[in-house]
């Protein structure tokens, strides 16, 4: 899960990574109140999860109430790459002397954390990495031993930052590492990390990703989610039920078990000329309730013409899936056709259950996908 900039900064703050005074606002009024507290000039930043705001020209400044009102209004009515701006961060503007870049990232393939630092921070950092690799140092971290302050100094030294100057950056390296390694983060990026004219080193942005599986041991993830709101969304409600749902724009509702099979099903709908309405993975070992909830979720999607359910039982049992389908048909008063493909563990039992209710499940995936696409076109 990606964190909003302001959420990421909250984590940073807890671990002693300095950030400018700030506050998050959902309205122009709230923005003015925050600005009054922290004082002008302020930066106004839309809080979105997609990243790359800078390039979208969505970072604004305000010297006074008038400018703040104008910019807050503009931003709060903005859409950035399809993401609605609901909240803005009002933050004390810092006096930039130089912009640096620092990031901790989990390298999944090497199974090790990696630290990166550059003397040339800012939105062009990828360009720097490509064209001026000597200005960016990357280094793997021994996962058993963790980050060490001498490693930070080595990195700084390699970039020509030495002595007293280097010492200023070491706490950032160490505190950001603690935030990263103790909070189950997969990415903790500060770009830019700013040295101010006053000589302080401050995190001006925060790009943070946390491992979804860590919610059981990171209390704050739940807290953040609760504060986020958006709980009225179909996707959020599905997640609450343990179902992974992403809403797309087509009319063929797709339900699968397992991310790979579900993705393949979405691919096939496309291949055969259909338009998937969603990606819905009931996960491994789903019982009847989850199947019921999955079908229920899709009935709430506007414009859906058919539901295609593609189940290959492994840890998931076909009989339990069939029970869920029967329950859904009984309770949901489904107005659209349901195409079921069912095979794998306890297949016989599952088919028997469905047949009793008059449903003939497919064994072949392709046939089921073709049928669903066909039905979606009839319904257009």
């Amino acid at each position, binding site marked *: 899960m*990606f964190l909003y900039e302001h959420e990421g900064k909250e984590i940073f703050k807890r671990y002693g990574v300095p950030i400018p005074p700030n506050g998050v606002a959902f309205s122009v009024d709230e923005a003015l109140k925050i600005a009054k507290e922290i004082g002008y000039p302020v930066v106004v930043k839309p809080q979105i*999860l*997609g*990243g790359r705001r800078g390039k979208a020209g969505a970072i604004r400044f305000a010297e006074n109430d008038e400018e703040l009102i104008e910019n807050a209004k503009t931003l709060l009515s903005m859409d950035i790459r399809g*993401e609605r701006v609901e909240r803005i961060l009002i933050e004390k503007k810092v006096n930039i002397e130089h912009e640096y870049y620092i*990031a*901790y*990232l*989990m*390298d*999944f*393939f090497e*199974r*090790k954390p*990696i630290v990166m630092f550059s003397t040339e921070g800012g939105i062009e*950092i990828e360009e720097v990495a490509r064209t001026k690799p000597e200005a*960016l140092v990357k280094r793997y971290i021994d*996962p*058993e031993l963790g980050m060490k302050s001498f490693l930070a100094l080595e990195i700084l030294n390699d970039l020509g930052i030495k002595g007293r100057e280097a010492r200023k950056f070491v706490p950032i390296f160490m505190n950001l590492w603690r935030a990263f390694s103790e909070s*189950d983060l*997969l*990415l903790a*990026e500060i*770009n830019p990390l700013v040295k101010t004219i006053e000589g302080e080193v401050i995190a001006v942005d925060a*790009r943070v*990703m946390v*491992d979804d*599986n*860590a919610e*059981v*041991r990171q209390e704050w993830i739940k807290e953040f989610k609760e504060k986020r709101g958006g709980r009225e969304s179909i996707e959020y409600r599905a997640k609450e039920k343990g179902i992974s749902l*992403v809403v*797309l724009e087509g009319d063929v509702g797709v339900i699968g078990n*397992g*991310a*790979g*099979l579900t*993705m*393949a099903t*979405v*691919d*096939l709908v*496309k*291949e055969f000329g259909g338009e*998937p309405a969603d*990606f819905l993975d009931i996960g*491994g*070992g789903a019982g009847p309730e989850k199947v019921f909830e999955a079908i229920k979720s899709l009935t709430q999607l506007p414009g859906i013409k058919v539901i295609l359910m593609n*189940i*290959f*039982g*492994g*840890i*998931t049992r076909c009989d339990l899936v069939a029970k869920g389908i029967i329950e859904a048909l009984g309770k949901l008063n489904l107005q659209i056709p349901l195409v079921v493909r069912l*095979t*794998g*563990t306890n*297949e016989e039992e599952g088919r028997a259950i469905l047949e009793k209710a008059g449903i003939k499940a497919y064994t072949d*995936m*392709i046939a089921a996908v073709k049928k669903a696409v066909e039905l979606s076109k009839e319904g257009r």
Partner: protein
Amino acid sequence: MAVLVNKDTKVVVQGITGREGSFHTKLMLEYGTKIVAGVTPGKGGNDVHGVPVYDSIKDALKEHDIDASIIFVPAKFAYDAVMEAIYNELNPIVVITEGIPIWVTMKLVNEAKKRNIYIIGPNCPGIIVPGEIKLGIMPGHTFKPGDVAVISRSGTLTYEISKLLTDNNLGQSVVIGIGGDSIKGITIPEALRLLENDPYTKRIVIIGEIGGIEEEKAAELIKKGEITKPVVAYIAGKHATLRTGVSFGHAGAIILGEMGRPESKIRAFNEARVLVARLPIEVIDYLKTI
């Protein structure tokens, strides 16, 4: 005899008294897997489908020879269970459990690697050598013996494609479901190296997904000539713009570049002269040509 496990492999089931552990113990036994013991801390003394249950692997080892482990414990207890298997030098260790935090998996996988122990998974269907041993949760009847090896990041898609293989009379030497988590034990490149040296494997199917760089690294190995057996690939998620927005910031872009996207994977395989199937059924067509 095949890679990692075979008909003589003696197995302990960790978390055998749980719902999934117990259910799949039954199915594995029916398949012929030599499950000699189960472990659930605090449940020692019971039995499950005739398999004696112990509190600890060490206690089970007093009564039985054990080679490998399959783990069904909940994510919360997975660290301890895997570590226990590592301490007792079981190999391979198949971790079915899903939902293990990535930092936990990272520590486990590094520890196992230090001791030359293979972990399969977590969040995986396991490994099957058709007709010999099923160490996992895949539906056994979907597979049959043969010379095609399957390596897959996806669970259900593995069954899907294996069924197509079986239906088309392409038996399998071994099917390894390496699991869907970002950090895992055996990766596609590591599995390829094992299969290259397996006399029972003639051809290899890779079932990949968008995300990660295992497919690109696998293509690199093949291109360098370190894998000489013919390989066919299928990549799930080609039309999935689903996971965009889930990029890893500038840091991810710097480290990964374009890698991880379906186009990158397909390009890498093409450059390694690996055929990439558009539809699952094409895997069969391609296999027949090589």
